[in-house]
């Protein structure tokens, strides 16, 4: 547990001292602010669903920018050799990077709470739906960060890591569209793999255990594969 804490502090410090995190946060808030103003003036409805969908799309593009350097940079600068020859289990290294990046992403998401507060001040939003939306976003972020780390762990080129992550996220996003072209049982498999298929119900306020399970098991699978990959020497 001590090594996990030490590694987490190092990762978080590296994230917060890098301009990448601030750039991502700035882009995120700029686009969200624009969308929020536009939809609020257009619909005049106290609802954050548009914002949640916007965050879903933005995070698919921006989370890989945050995860791409985690292992790729360590591999390129050869500091991974220092970590892997220290008396630290591979799982601690992976979990520390995962927790630090997820903390940053959730921190950026949390900044959007200001829109919920504004809606509450001037309207009557459905807080149950808002809570469910943030739960969906947190689970979505967990999956994106875990898969992003996995992609970063298999290459020393950050751009390749980001491109692979975005490619996988897009495939998962559109998996439900592909399902219509497939015959049983592959159609239901594609449908169940769909990222948006598990995200949408939660954002609408319907929280199903199966959707939560999808995000958690997918995240765990990606973290397991990253750890396993590191242990293959």
């Amino acid at each position: 547990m001590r090594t996990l804490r030490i590694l987490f502090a190092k990762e978080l410090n590296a994230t917060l001292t890098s301009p990448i995190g601030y750039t991502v946060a700035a882009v995120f808030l700029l686009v969200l602010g624009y969308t929020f103003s536009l939809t609020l003036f257009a619909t005049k409805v106290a609802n954050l669903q548009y914002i949640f969908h916007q965050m879903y799309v933005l995070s698919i593009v921006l989370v890989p920018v945050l995860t791409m350097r985690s292992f790729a940079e360590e591999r390129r600068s050869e500091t991974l050799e220092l970590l892997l020859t220290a008396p630290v289990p591979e799982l601690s290294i992976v979990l520390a990077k995962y927790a630090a990046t997820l903390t940053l992403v959730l921190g950026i998401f949390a900044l959007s709470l200001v829109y919920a507060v504004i809606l509450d001040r001037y309207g009557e939003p459905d807080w149950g739906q808002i809570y469910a939306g943030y739960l969906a976003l947190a689970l979505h972020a967990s999956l994106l960060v875990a898969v992003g780390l996995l992609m970063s762990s298999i290459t020393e080129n950050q751009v390749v890591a980001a491109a692979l992550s975005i490619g996988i996220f897009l495939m998962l996003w559109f998996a439900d569209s592909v399902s219509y072209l497939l015959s049983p049982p592959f159609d239901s498999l594609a449908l169940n793999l769909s990222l948006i298929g598990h995200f949408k119900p939660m954002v609408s306020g319907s929280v199903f255990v199966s959707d939560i399970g999808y995000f958690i098991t997918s995240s765990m699978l990606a973290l397991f594969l990253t750890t396993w990959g590191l242990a293959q020497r």
Partner: protein
Amino acid sequence: MTISAIDAAPNDALVQTGIAPAISASNVSKRYGPVLALEGLTLDIHAGEVFGLLGPNGSGKTTFMRLLAGYLLPSAGRLMVAGHDVVGDSLAVRRRIGYVPEAAPLYRQMRVREFLAFMARLRGVPEGNVKGAVERIVDRLVLSTVADKPTRALSRGYRQRTALAQALVHDPDILILDEPSNGLDPRQIIEMRQLIRSLAGRHTVLISSHILSEVEKTCDRVAVLLNGRLLGVRAMADTADLEAWFLSLT
């Protein structure tokens, strides 16, 4: 409590008393796909000696060191470090060694003291002893003038020294230094050699080099590797002409 006391095991006692070798390789091989980087290496390195691995680039020196450090796993054979198996008891091995890779990598965003404290914590130095351990190693390796500088601003010589400091900060039994004089100027090479010699006795030191004179002046014993095979081992005291012996083997 020191790190060595934390993990003291019966095997360690045998190593410390000289009954068991500090490093023991038995028929160790390492394969990267179709390439056999190390072939059936059998070698014992005694506690407290400075042992040199000599050979041209690609001879298997770095592969052997990476196996010892736990960065790679052997494809075949048995490798014991400080009485622990590098495959079955990898964490225990990693607690007992200090390792400096050839590139002497450092975290560029950290300052020297911060980096050494991070490595000390990672290597299991108790929180209350971290500051003392860092200051001791800063003094010992004469790093005080650069201790508050970011590691990215260090010259090659100080970078190498900082890399050595991170390997020594937890006072390990065994030091593994891959090409420690690489890229240093003549004065820095002499200083590095004196530093390594000063570690003998208290630490078992394994260094790799492709420079004959460096090995000759630094090591107690030397092994010659070529194309992943061990060609010979000899004590420097018994070697009148290292160059002639090296040429006769290769």
